[in-house]
């Protein structure tokens, strides 16, 4: 059922895109007047139409394949959804999304430490003190390796004291 719902949602999104968002700016006049120019909307529209047709075929195939199965109902989907929201995978997704949002304001050092520690916990490491220490060491190793040695531009953070701390650390190391 989950597969079917995902396919339907994707189909609806693609249909919406085809209807409203293929070309979002006026096409230059010289392109409009040139009968031999491939208009900017043609290529994505063809892909969208093909995708919509194939997704409909896929949806029909899924329905025909699962018709009559006990689990192929909204109730079964609801049960599966509850299980998913309790799962480690969902928490993992939340952590990855969180990392992408806190990287800029908190900076690399804090984000790295938080992710190494919390993801380690999520993966079942119960030796908290060892995990804490290793997360700290790995944060420094990654920071020195990429930020200092390879001079990769890592975010220092926008929160003032965290930014000052990153700058202080940079000065200390270099």
């Amino acid at each position, binding site marked *: 059922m*989950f*597969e079917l719902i*995902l*396919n339907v949602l994707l189909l609806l999104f693609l249909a919406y*895109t085809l209807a409203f*968002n293929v*070309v*979002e700016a006026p096409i*230059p006049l010289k*392109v409009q007047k*040139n009968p*031999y*120019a*491939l208009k*900017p*909307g043609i*290529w*994505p529209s063809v*892909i969208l139409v*093909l*995708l919509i047709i*194939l*997704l409909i075929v*896929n949806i029909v195939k899924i329905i025909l394949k699962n018709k009559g199965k006990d689990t192929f109902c909204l109730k079964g989907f609801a049960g599966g959804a509850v299980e998913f929201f309790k*799962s*480690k*995978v969902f*928490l*993992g*997704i939340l*952590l*990855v*999304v969180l*990392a*992408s*949002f806190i*990287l*800029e304001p908190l900076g*690399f050092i804090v*984000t*790295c430490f938080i*992710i*190494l520690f919390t*993801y*380690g*916990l999520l*993966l*079942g*490491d119960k030796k908290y003190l060892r995990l804490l220490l*290793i*997360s700290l060491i*790995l944060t420094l190793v*990654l920071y020195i390796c*990429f930020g200092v040695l*390879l*001079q*990769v*531009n*890592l*975010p220092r953070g926008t929160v003032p004291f965290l930014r000052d701390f990153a700058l202080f650390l940079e000065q200390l190391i270099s």
Partner: protein
Amino acid sequence: MNLFQMLVNGLSVVFQPTMLLMVFFAVILGTLFGSLPGVSATMAVALGLPFTYSMGPVQSIVFLVAIYCSSITGGSISAILFKIPGVPSSAATTFDGYPMAQQGKAGKALGVALGCSAIGGLFSALAMFLLSPQLTQAALSFGPSEMFAVTFLGLSILTGLDTTNILRTIISGLLGLLLACIGQDPMYGVQRMTFGSNQLLSGIEMIPVLIGIFAVTEVLTQTGEKSHLKGSDGIGGGKVNTEMPTFKEWLSIKWVVLRSSILGTVVGILPGAGATIASFMSYSVETKLSKHPEKFGTGIIDGIAASETANNAATGGAMVPLLSLGIPGGNAAAVMMSALVLKGVQMGPLLLINQPDYLSATFVSMIISNIVMVIVAILIAKVFAQILAVPYSFLGPIIIMLALIGSYSTSSNIMDVKIMAIAGIAGLLFRAMKFNSAALILGLVLGGICEGNFSRAFTISRGSLWTMFNRPIAGIVMLVCIGALLYPVVSPIIKKKFKPAGNVKK
């Protein structure tokens, strides 16, 4: 510039103390990444990207090629010792490698795998060095029609990526093509499918998507697994001393190695086909050609030689279309191409004409990597049980952080990190929908080139689609494309039609 001069140039690029050290480091990194299950060759190359940000473009490709070659070899270590292919292309190595390990011949199996990997890699590096300039010369006469046809050849392999799921594979490929349309159109710069986001105006960066789909999705999947890999699996914990094959054994597999080297290189050259297809194809060919096919799968060196020679031979092959045409031969080559494009390198036939250093440095890097990796892999195999004992609770988060660094450093844009996170989640949804991530990547990488060339060809021919077929090279390639697209669809139908006929005769 003749080949000798090119070789001297390549040596002068790679034989710099810093560069040489980086190549050694890349080989260690690649072999290690390759040997760890769950880290594919593409992922290894993607994770190596942040190291290249401070390098020049030629140095970057030298570094990434070294990771690529050694990761393919590294995959054989876990395949033989634990029956877990470190990279997908080592899957066929488990057929004979693991039974040999169970018979107490793990050292010999590793020796054959490493020796054959090195030979396959060296053979394909030489083939790449000799073939790429020829293909480049031919490509200079290519117009947009031919370039579209060659790019389309890469897309036509889509249906062959997963023959059991052709419909979903095509959908995945089309989704990749659609993603490539986001931003400004390649001909007139008209804004498309940005949904009002200014950050999407420049399009979707390939690297964050690649890292998200290959690295983040894998870690998320492993997060849901109940048990993670431990050193106590398989024969871990025991001592492993790699033992190179004897002269007599080398003689017995000489034709296997030669055939697999040629087959691997040819398969590698085909856009879209890669090391995995090469190794399985080679294993299957050798089973058919062998005088004792019944012994395959029971633990013979011929099986390991076929798989390992071919998958490493595919590495050099995959570099041929990338360097000579600017079209990646596989996912790992696509990551390398993204790294070069990021540095402002204009990919295409003129690359090797204007800067032959790219080819010669890649060649020298491959030669060095293929030799050094044998030594590195022997050492890694020795301590492999201990390496696998590194808890996933450390390895998983490190991969996430490397993915974060790799995405952010692409253009110091936080949006790329968000795209990586979305791609990681999309990769999970793709698995749930039984879609094909490799097909999506292929579509995303080739989409822009394909549309640009199609649009140019269409305008030049005054709006005629016939132009794709009425030029000799473009026509032939397009026919091959149609054949490649239809074969996986038609062949089961034909087989089905002939099967009942056979039964009637019986």
